[in-house]
């Protein structure tokens, strides 16, 4: 879709809704988006923005392939897939961290291959490769906390927000892999051909998000 519109991919869910609120605040509102219907694409001809909701882990693909010019995505997805995109600003929302967690009494035995259960095999591999630690990855799609409890893995690499779920299951986060928050990303070619529009959006969003930290 190569026209004057800026195509924006938002992640479905709470993070996407907070991100849209920031866009709205910056003057890129699109009233249609609040209507309850089954439409997938929403546009506003006044301010030339077009929004669509996609699965959070797909935002980076839409932007990298140019179907969306810009998008909102968690740093976890960027670290996992390492898409070839520009990372324009930190929204300072959806703040959490990627951490290694294990049972409270766990001690790492360097003689054994460490079994790591995770939804993020790329991040886990990279993290342990830097430490030259041999690991076996067990890729799961949900309920990661279950893995160490059932002896499926020694540790997990997962997103930790408050640590409550971990604590309730007798797990504890003992290493931080990376801090995570939502980022505004841009397709590299769109950034060049729609430079004025995209840099303006990025500047406004960045200013609003900086004010938010000061609060």
């Amino acid at each position, binding site marked *: 879709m*190569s026209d004057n519109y800026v195509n924006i991919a938002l992640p479905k869910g709470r993070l996407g809704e907070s991100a849209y609120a920031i866009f709205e605040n910056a003057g890129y509102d699109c009233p249609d988006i609040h209507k309850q219907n089954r439409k997938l694409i929403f546009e506003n001809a006044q301010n030339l923005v077009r929004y669509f909701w996609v699965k959070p882990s797909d935002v980076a693909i839409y932007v*990298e*392939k*140019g179907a969306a010019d810009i998008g909102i995505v968690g740093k976890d997805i960027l670290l996992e897939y390492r898409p*070839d*995109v*520009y*990372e*324009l*600003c*930190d929204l300072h929302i959806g703040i959490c961290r990627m951490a290694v967690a294990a049972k409270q009494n766990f001690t790492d035995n360097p003689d054994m291959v460490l079994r790591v259960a995770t939804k993020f095999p790329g991040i886990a591999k990279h993290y342990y490769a830097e430490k030259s630690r041999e690991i076996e990855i067990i890729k799961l799609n949900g309920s990661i906390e279950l893995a160490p409890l059932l002896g499926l893995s020694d540790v997990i690499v997962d997103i930790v927000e408050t640590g409550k779920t971990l604590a309730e299951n007798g797990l504890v986060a003992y290493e931080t892999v990376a801090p995570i928050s939502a980022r505004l990303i841009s*397709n*590299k*070619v*769109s*950034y*060049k*051909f729609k*430079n004025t529009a995209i840099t303006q959006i990025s500047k406004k969003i960045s200013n609003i998000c900086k004010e938010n930290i000061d609060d």
Partner: protein
Amino acid sequence: MTLNDNELLPSERAVYTLRQLYLSYGYKRYKVSKFEEYDLYAQNKSFLTDKSILTFTDTDGRLMALKPDITLSIIKNIKDTQGTQKVFYNECVYRASDSGFRELMQTGLECIGDIELSLTAEVISLAYKSLERIGENFLIDISHMGFTMGLIDAITEDSNIKAQLMLAVQAKSYDEVKEICAQTKAGDRFSNALARACVLYGRPSDILKEARDISVNAQTNAALDDLEGIVNIMSENGLTKNLRLDFSILNDTNYYNGIIFKGFIDGIPQSVLSGGRYDSLLEKLGKNQGAIGFAVYLDSLDRLLMSKDTSATDGGDSIVG
């Protein structure tokens, strides 16, 4: 037999248009075979943008590769003679992909020998004219390894941190550059310069001015002098309308030094042209010469221009003169 223009695919048309262009500048056609000994790529893997290589064994049991790149073969075979050699090629290259493997059409040119400023400007002008003949809305972005790497070298000597900084620069991530710099002993002046440099983007005259303000040492100054010289020649020839500077463009430092550039056509989400100065590669291959060149990736053209031909009323203009 006469050739009917309408029977050609956009990429095929582009091949002929570009061939005319390069021949008119005195570049000679260089023909290479589809196969090369795998060893050449094994030794120079990081020169390849795509590391996937398709291999097979020949009847003598040697490990062979379907060429993933043409430049390496040309450099390997070119004779160490006096003077400058100018060649162009149009070949298919082979890459692995998620669905098996792909054949990609590539056209490009190489200039080997004494690479003076005027020759660098000629090669970039040809890149500019190549895209001008293919797509109406295009951009050529230039960068200089000496500037961006000069800023990075001034911040740290740690190769691990350098690698992290290069990734952050390529992502134009101002915040991340600052965060990584905070782990080093570099002063604010240096970290601010790099963070600022990676987000700079725009017309050469504006960006050069801003870059002068953040330049930190003799190396970065020299890189900017180089860039300025090229931009001046380009502007004398009226080739600056679609020219931009972008210091976030980086290539592998083991092969590239000096000017590097990329080309884009509106509607194609990846770069369609990529090139630069690669003296370091020649040095690695034991040749005592300079070299500059670029490649145009023609495979994405068909989808873009075919869809335009059918949808736009003004589409379908002949691009073969």
